[in-house]
């Protein structure tokens, strides 16, 4: 069974801090994604990656960056956290095979004070 693991379930940071959210998957998936989930707004794609060292902007990349140095790991970086980045962050992975589903992690609830 595919496992996508996000390193923290809950995180509290101060405004201006640099924040790292880590995600690891164990199924050798090529594609990895970061979404944020907000009530009433659904899931919005921040960044995605289809290969090591490759990344593409999603719909709301502003204020975020990502790193994919190894196939199994995809990190989301908040360069200078702001209160409007308080949210639930979901990592997901999938293979490149047609119609393969996204496998999600449990999420990281980030609060920026």
């Amino acid at each position, binding site marked *: 069974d595919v496992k996508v693991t996000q390193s923290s379930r809950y995180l509290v940071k101060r405004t201006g801090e640099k924040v790292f959210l880590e995600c690891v998957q164990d199924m050798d998936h090529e594609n990895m994604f970061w979404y944020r989930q907000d009530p009433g707004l*659904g*899931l919005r794609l921040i960044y995605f990656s*289809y290969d090591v060292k490759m990344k593409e902007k999603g719909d709301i990349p502003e204020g975020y960056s990502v790193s994919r140095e190894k196939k199994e790991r995809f990190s989301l970086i908040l360069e200078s956290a702001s209160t409007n980045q308080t949210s639930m962050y979901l990592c997901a992975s999938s293979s*490149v*095979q047609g119609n393969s589903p*996204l496998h999600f992690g*449990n*999420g990281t609830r980030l609060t920026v004070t």
Partner: protein
Amino acid sequence: AQRVTQPEKLLSVFKGAPVELKCNYSYSGSPELFWYVQYSRQRLQLLLRHISRESIKGFTADLNKGETSFHLKKPFAQEEDSAMYYCALSTSGGSNYKLTFGKGTLLTVNP
């Protein structure tokens, strides 16, 4: 640009009643559509995909290209169906390269 619309934020039905969660999409290419579900305190997971034409947990969904819809239906709702449901559109040939989600519908099935 692709768009997924779920017009109902909240939907409440009684156990045993039929349920329909609406989903409309906007996409100029050939769409591939999915329903994802998130039960309380669980991770988001795939419920079903249109290409499989399958029934999962009694739910079905038919792609209607004329109406650009992919509504999720179940004839007799159960309390364990209470969850958040997201409709999603894949716009990259089915590789889930980029999956666009709707805003979700919270389904509550009352006893």
